[in-house]
């Protein structure tokens, strides 16, 4: 049932917005990304923009910051119409953004990353490096970042880079600050510091647009909300007047409680045993076993070493020590090709870079790891390729115009289906899914969960790496928690509670004593 939009404008906002977008439209070839959306940002208030993937959040951010030009509608700055033909125009108007991925320059210094495009000049019109470094230091100090503005960005870690990105946003005397999923790559402590920063910016009277998928976060720091769905404006209002359930309902247009498939696991014999796996810098002392029909969850914070371990297991990197037994036999896996032959497959997290070859047709993507089986003496057999691709894409309920369509033209959820189909077509014994539902819509998410349950029921052993608690709790029979490259806990049954997992993952209660 479509959501009824009586929420819209239920509460007249206090004061006038600094920045208002009215009836914004943006059309890409074949897709109407934004269809007359409205967004208002008020001084000293945090507005949370919520919506599913594909709702148009990233597009509106790009319009706000001058990367894209709207095809219709109006941008009003303090009531006066304005246009942002380039990123520099948006910055000049006081709109600044901290983007989802850090868009910075590794080869340049921290100071220059902060000031590129609006650096202080000497009287001759040349760049004033001394002033740049001094001002950069001042901004970094103001947000409590202990970073030398003179070092190259490449020398910093991810969290520090993020602080540089924030400093860059602050270096512009901004009235509007856009934060596009700013906490995605941050640790608990850093997220906390970010919240403090947001409070500080609010106090300075800046208008903040906060985009996030995490509801706890939204309810913690936002004052207002705006909801988009499928490129359309759904509702806006004060955050203290809605519940989490209301927001979800507005986002998806129906009520959804995340339902995970009911399953009664029947565990078979041990299929995979990992003993003493270690890598010089990424992980060590990894021991566990996996049974047929089991779904084993790997939980941990981003950067806990889970993906790194999995990639080592399938031969992308070499372990420094440790052994793998498959059905009781010791196996040495030196490349993904060998892993596939041994029946262990890894569905990577980064769909665009590691999973799919987006420019190539669906059927060629599906058959790529199975070519040895579909071909004869090294010669391609197209008919067999189509058969295999058809079989597995149908099983995953793929939506596509034809099997000859490039994967890049599909939606995120359907791309993920192709990627899963591709590894499943190798008929593996163990399938490792790394963040299998990251960045896909709720419908596809449920389909993937359903499918995982099916696989386990068929006797496949499933490892699922996920940072999403509900998913880990809803799907796994047993959960291994990793922190800083080590296994810190293995929980199952009644022990599997959100509290236990989070405490183990974050190391709460273990480091306090030190």
């Amino acid at each position, binding site marked *: 049932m479509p959501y009824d939009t009586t929420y819209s404008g239920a509460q007249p906002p206090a004061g006038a917005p600094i920045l208002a977008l009215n009836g914004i439209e943006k059309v890409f070839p074949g897709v109407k990304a934004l269809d007359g959306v409205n967004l208002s940002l008020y001084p000293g208030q945090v507005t949370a923009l919520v919506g599913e993937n594909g709702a148009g959040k990233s597009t509106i951010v790009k319009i706000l910051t001058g990367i894209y030009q709207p095809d219709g509608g109006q941008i009003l700055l303090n009531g006066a119409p304005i246009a942002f033909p*380039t990123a520099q125009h948006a910055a000049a108007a006081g709109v600044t953004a901290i983007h989802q991925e850090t868009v910075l320059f590794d080869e340049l210094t921290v100071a220059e990353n902060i000031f590129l*495009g609006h650096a202080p000049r000497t009287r001759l019109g040349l760049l004033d490096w001394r002033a740049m470094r001094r001002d950069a230091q001042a901004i970094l100090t103001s947000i409590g970042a202990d970073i030398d503005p003179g070092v190259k960005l490449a020398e910093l870690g991810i969290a520090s880079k993020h602080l540089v990105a924030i400093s860059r946003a602050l270096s512009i005397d901004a009235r509007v600050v856009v934060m596009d999923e700013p906490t995605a790559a941050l640790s608990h402590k850093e997220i906390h510091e970010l919240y403090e920063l947001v409070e500080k910016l609010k106090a300075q009277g800046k208008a903040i647009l906060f985009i996030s998928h995490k509801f706890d976060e939204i309810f913690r720091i936002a004052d207002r909300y705006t909801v988009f769905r499928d490129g359309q404006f759904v509702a806006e209002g004060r955050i203290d007047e809605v519940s989490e359930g209301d927001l979800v309902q507005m986002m998806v247009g129906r009520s959804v409680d995340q339902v995970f498939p009911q399953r009664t696991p029947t565990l078979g014999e041990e299929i995979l045993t990992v003993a003493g796996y270690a890598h*010089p810098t990424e992980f060590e002392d990894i021991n566990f076993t996996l049974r047929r029909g089991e779904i084993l969850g790997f939980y941990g914070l981003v950067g806990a070493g889970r993906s790194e371990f999995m990639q080592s297991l399938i031969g992308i990197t070499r372990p420094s020590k440790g052994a793998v037994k498959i059905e009781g036999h010791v196996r040495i896996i030196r490349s993904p090709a060998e892993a596939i032959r041994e029946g262990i497959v890894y569905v990577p997290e980064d769909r665009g870079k590691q999973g799919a070859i987006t420019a190539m047709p669906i059927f060629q993507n599906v058959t790529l790891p199975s070519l040895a089986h579909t071909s004869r003496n090294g010669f391609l057999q197209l008919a067999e390729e189509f058969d295999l691709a058809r079989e597995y894409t149908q099983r995953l309920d793929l939506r596509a115009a034809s099997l000859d369509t490039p994967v890049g033209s599909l939606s995120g959820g359907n791309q993920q289906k192709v990627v899963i189909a591709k590894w499943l077509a190798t008929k593996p014994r163990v399938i490792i899914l790394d963040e299998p539902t990251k960045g896909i819509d709720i419908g596809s998410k449920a389909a993937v969960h359903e499918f995982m349950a099916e696989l386990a029921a068929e006797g496949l052993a499933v490892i699922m790496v996920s940072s999403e608690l509900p998913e880990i709790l809803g799907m796994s029979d047993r959960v291994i928690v990793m922190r800083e490259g080590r296994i810190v806990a293995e929980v199952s049954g009644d022990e599997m509670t959100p509290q236990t997992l989070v405490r183990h993952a974050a190391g709460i209660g273990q480091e306090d004593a030190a």
Partner: protein
Amino acid sequence: MIPFRLTREVLLAFALLVLLVLVATRFPGFVAPSNLAAVFNDTSALIILALGQFIVILTRCIDLSVAANLALTGMVCALLNTVAPDLPIVFTLGLALALGATLGAVNGFFVWKLDIPPIVVTLGTMVIFRGIIFLISDGQWVNAHEMSPRFTAFPRYEILGIPMLSWCAVLVIALVYVLVTRTSLGRSFFAVGGNPHAAVYTGIDVGRTQFLAFVISGTLAGLAGYLWVSRYAVAYVDIAGGFELDVVAACVIGGAAISGGAGSVFGIVLGALFLGVIKNALPVVDISPFWQLAISGSAIIIAVALNARSGRAKGRIILRKAEHAHEPV
């Protein structure tokens, strides 16, 4: 105090020094100041072209047409001189710069407006420019006796005992240095090559910046064109044939990353001098000049191998003990 670090430039300067010492043991006269000045003078054209190429490479492009641009501009200057021998040199210089810039702009246009890969564009314009030289010169040489004294005297005109050719190189080094370190255009070359995606978010027009890089490279090639023709007092279709590879070699040896966004003016100058010293030293230490090609080829391979070793991506550091290099207590 800037902490002393074994940067690429220091390493290269050291290699150059070792090379000079080695040559000096066989032939001490080589390191006499006057001879070193002569080596620098001989390397001037390479330095000028390499600095232009450096800017192009910074933006993730490559310009294979620089030598052909040099030859075409040189021929036009020479032909103009045969028609109007008394034209003041300022005009000739202005023509060389303008024509070079125009030819560079042609390359830049295709890269910017039509999004054609730079290697394809400049591969094409390289042969086209050479062909045009043949058309305008009818395949004939313009020899020394057809050039006016004024035309050929310019690169040899000495100020403080240093010929104008060297001064031109010094001026170009200074200008390019200021450009890439102290202007926003210069910094945007680094930004565009380092991370084009992020450059857009910073408000930099990537295509336009690449266009300007080609215009600069072309302008410098034009300047080098006049200097080359007037110095050697001859112009024909094939002058500086294959020189584009020396130019790229100087950049690679000098530490410019072919993937863009990294390198320094100082490094490029050293890279060019390194090749210049080898070229000039071979005859005096009694090694056949035919060795030169193989030596510079080896130098390129060694340089790029060293480049990659320093920039090799390591695994992520997740384990604490790896971070602190000892076991946690």
